[in-house]
C-alpha cells in the first residue's frame, strides 16, 4: 500500500516537472510553473523519506536526513534571497555545482557499499533480487557503469560550475596554456579508459582506482572551464546544467527511481537545447565555444595587431541631456555595465522622464547581452520597465534607422560592427544590434578598455558616435538631473 502511494508521489513529481518546465517557458504562467515544480519536488522528497522501502526495510537515520535538509534549506533560502540581481548567474552556477557534487557523493557511497557487499561474491551472475533494474545476469556491469557515470559527470559538473562561478564574480581569471585542448582530450580519454578498466576488472578492484577517477574528473572540470572566455560563460553554465541533469538521471537508473530519471533526463535534454539556442544566438557552434578559447585568442589577436583605431570624441552630460530630450525616438541598449553599476532603476527613471517629455523610449535587447541570455530582461523587469518596451534584436534592428539617439549603456561586443565586417574578428558572424544605423549614438562606458571578449570596437571611432565616460548609474543620475534642469 505504502509503496503504491510512493509510486503515486513519484508520478505526481514527474508530471509537475514537465508541466512546470512547460509553464516556465511562457511569461504569463512562468511563476506558477516554478511553484508547481517546487510542489512536486516536495511531494517526491517527503514520499521518499516516509514511504521508501528497500528489501522491506524503511529508511532510517531520520535525524541526519532532517538535519541535512534543515541546514540546506536555511543556507539555500538565505543565499537565494540575499543575492543581488547582478550576481544571479553566479548563483545559478553555484547551485548547479551543488547538485553535481550531490550526484558524485551518491556514487562514492554506493561504490563503497557495493564493494563492501560485493554482488558478485558468489559468481558474476548474482545480483540482489531487490535490485530490480540490474537483476539481469547478462549485465553484471550495469551498476558499475552507472555509478561511474554519475561520479564522472557529477564531478565535472561540480568542479566546472565552481570555476564558472569564480570567473563570473572575477575571482578566477581566464587561464590557458599551449596545447591545453590536447591536454584536455588526453585527460578525458584517460578518465574513460580508467573507468572502462575498472568496470571490466571490478572484481578484486581496490578503491584507489575509483578515487583516481574521481580526482581526474574534478581536475577535468577545472581545465574544461578554465580556458573558456568570460563571454561564453552562459553557454558553459547551461551545458553544465544539463550535465547535472544527466548525473541526476544516473541516480534514477541506480535506484530504479522514475522521478529522478524523468527530472534528470528532462533537464539534460532541455539544457542541451538551451545551450544550442545560446550558441546559435552568437552564430557559433558548441564545439567552437568549447575548444575556441574565445577570450584568450581574442586578446592575443588584439595585442598582435596593436593598430591604432583613430580618435574618438567625448560628449558632455549637458549635451547628452539636450540631444536626448529633443529627440523623438530614443533606443537604449543595455549591457553588462548596466548590471555591474546596478543602474536599472536609474535607467527606468530616465525612460519615464523622457517619456514625459514626449520622447518615444524603447530598449533593444541583444539575446546575449550581459552574462546570461535574458539577463537584461530580468534586470529591467526588476526596475518595473514595461514588457512592451523591450525589443528583441530583430525588431530593434528594424527600428534603428528611424531612431534619433541610441544610448549604449555598458554594452560592447553586442554592438561591435566587426562582427559583420571583419572576418578575422573572433566574434565575426555573431548577429549584432545595428546601432550605427541611428542618427546619433552615445556610448556610456567606464573607459576605452575593450569589452569582455577583449576586442576593439570600431563603433566608438565612428563619426556618429560620441563617448560618455563614467559609471552607468552615476552618469544616468547626473543625466536625469541635467534633463530636469533644462
Amino acid at each position, binding site marked *: 500500500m505504502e509503496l503504491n502511494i510512493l509510486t503515486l508521489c513519484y508520478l505526481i513529481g514527474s508530471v509537475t516537472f514537465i508541466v512546470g518546465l512547460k509553464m516556465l517557458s511562457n511569461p504569463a504562467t512562468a*511563476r506558477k510553473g516554478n511553484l508547481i515544480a517546487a510542489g512536486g519536488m516536495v511531494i517526491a522528497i517527503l514520499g521518499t523519506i516516509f514511504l521508501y522501502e528497500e528489501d522491506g526495510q524503511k*529508511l532510517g537515520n531520520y535525524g541526519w536526513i532532517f538535519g541535512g535538509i534543515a541546514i540546506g534549506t536555511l543556507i539555500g533560502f538565505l543565499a537565494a534571497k540575499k543575492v543581488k540581481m547582478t550576481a544571479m548567474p553566479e548563483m545559478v552556477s553555484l547551485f548547479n555545482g551543488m547538485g553535481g557534487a550531490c550526484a558524485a557523493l551518491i556514487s562514492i557511497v554506493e561504490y563503497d557499499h557495493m564493494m563492501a557487499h560485493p554482488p558478485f561474491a558468489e559468481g558474476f551472475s548474482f545480483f540482489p533480487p531487490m535490485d530490480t533494474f540490474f537483476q539481469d545476469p547478462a549485465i553484471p556491469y550495469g551498476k558499475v557503469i552507472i555509478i561511474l557515470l554519475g561520479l564522472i559527470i557529477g564531478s565535472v559538473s561540480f568542479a566546472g560550475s565552481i570555476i564558472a562561478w569564480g570567473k563570473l564574480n572575477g575571482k578566477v581569471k581566464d587561464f590557458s596554456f599551449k596545447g591545453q585542448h590536447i591536454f584536455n582530450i588526453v585527460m578525458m580519454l584517460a578518465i574513460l579508459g580508467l573507468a572502462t578498466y575498472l568496470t571490466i576488472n571490478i572484481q578484486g578492484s581496490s578503491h584507489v582506482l575509483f578515487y583516481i577517477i574521481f580526482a581526474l574528473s574534478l581536475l577535468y572540470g577545472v581545465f574544461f572551464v578554465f580556458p573558456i572566455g568570460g563571454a561564453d560563460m552562459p553557454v558553459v553554465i547551461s551545458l553544465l546544467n544539463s550535465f547535472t541533469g544527466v548525473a541526476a538521471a544516473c541516480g534514477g537508473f541506480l535506484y530504479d527511481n522514475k522521478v529522478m530519471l524523468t527530472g534528470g533526463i528532462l533537464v539534460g535534454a532541455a539544457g542541451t537545447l538551451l545551450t544550442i539556442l545560446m550558441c546559435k544566438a552568437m552564430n557559433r557552434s558548441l564545439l567552437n565555444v568549447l575548444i575556441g578559447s574565445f577570450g584568450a585568442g581574442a586578446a592575443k589577436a588584439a595585442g598582435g595587431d596593436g593598430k591604432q583605431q583613430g580618435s574618438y570624441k567625448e560628449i558632455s552630460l549637458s549635451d547628452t541631456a539636450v540631444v536626448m530630450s529633443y529627440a523623438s525616438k530614443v533606443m537604449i541598449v543595455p549591457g553588462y555595465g548596466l548590471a555591474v553599476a546596478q543602474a536599472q532603476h536609474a535607467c527606468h527613471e530616465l525612460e519615464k522622464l523622457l517619456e514625459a517629455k514626449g520622447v518615444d523610449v524603447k530598449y533593444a535587447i541583444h539575446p546575449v547581452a550581459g552574462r546570461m541570455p535574458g539577463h537584461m530582461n530580468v534586470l529591467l523587469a526588476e526596475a518595473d520597465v514595461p514588457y512592451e518596451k523591450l525589443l528583441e534584436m530583430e525588431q530593434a534592428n528594424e527600428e534603428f534607422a528611424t531612431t534619433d539617439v541610441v544610448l549604449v549603456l555598458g554594452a560592447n561586443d553586442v554592438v561591435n560592427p566587426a562582427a559583420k565586417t571583419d572576418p578575422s574578428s573572433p566574434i565575426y558572424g555573431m548577429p549584432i544590434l545595428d546601432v550605427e544605423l541611428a542618427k546619433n549614438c552615445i556610448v556610456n562606458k567606464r573607459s576605452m578598455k575593450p569589452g569582455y571578449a577583449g576586442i576593439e570596437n570600431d563603433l566608438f571611432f565612428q563619426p556618429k558616435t560620441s563617448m560618455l565616460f563614467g559609471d552607468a548609474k552615476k552618469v544616468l543620475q547626473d543625466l536625469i538631473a541635467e534633463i530636469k534642469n533644462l
Partner: protein
Amino acid sequence: MDSFLSWIHDNQQIIYIVILMVFVGIEVIGRVPSVLHTPLMSGANAIHGVVIIGAIIVMGKAESDNYLALILGFLAVVLGTLNVVGGFVVTDRMLEMFKKKKK
C-alpha cells in the same frame, strides 16, 4: 547479441522513459522567448535537484557504524537541498519581477 536484446527487453520501461523524456524536454522549451532564458535555466537547475532523492536513500539506508556513508550521505543531502531550495527560490525571485510589471 542475445544478452543485449534481453537487456533491452528487461529494461524497456526505462529505455522508453529516457527516449520520451529527451523529446519532451526539447519540445517543452522549444518555443521559449529569450526573455525567459535565465529563469528557465534557473528553474531547470532546481528540477535536477531531484538528485536529492538519491541522497536521502543513501543516507537512510546507511548503517549507523558506517561513518563514510553517514558523513558523505549527510553532505549529499545538504548539497542537494541547497540545489533544490536555492534553485526554486532564485527562480521565484526572478519571476516575481516579471509578474509585478504585468499589472
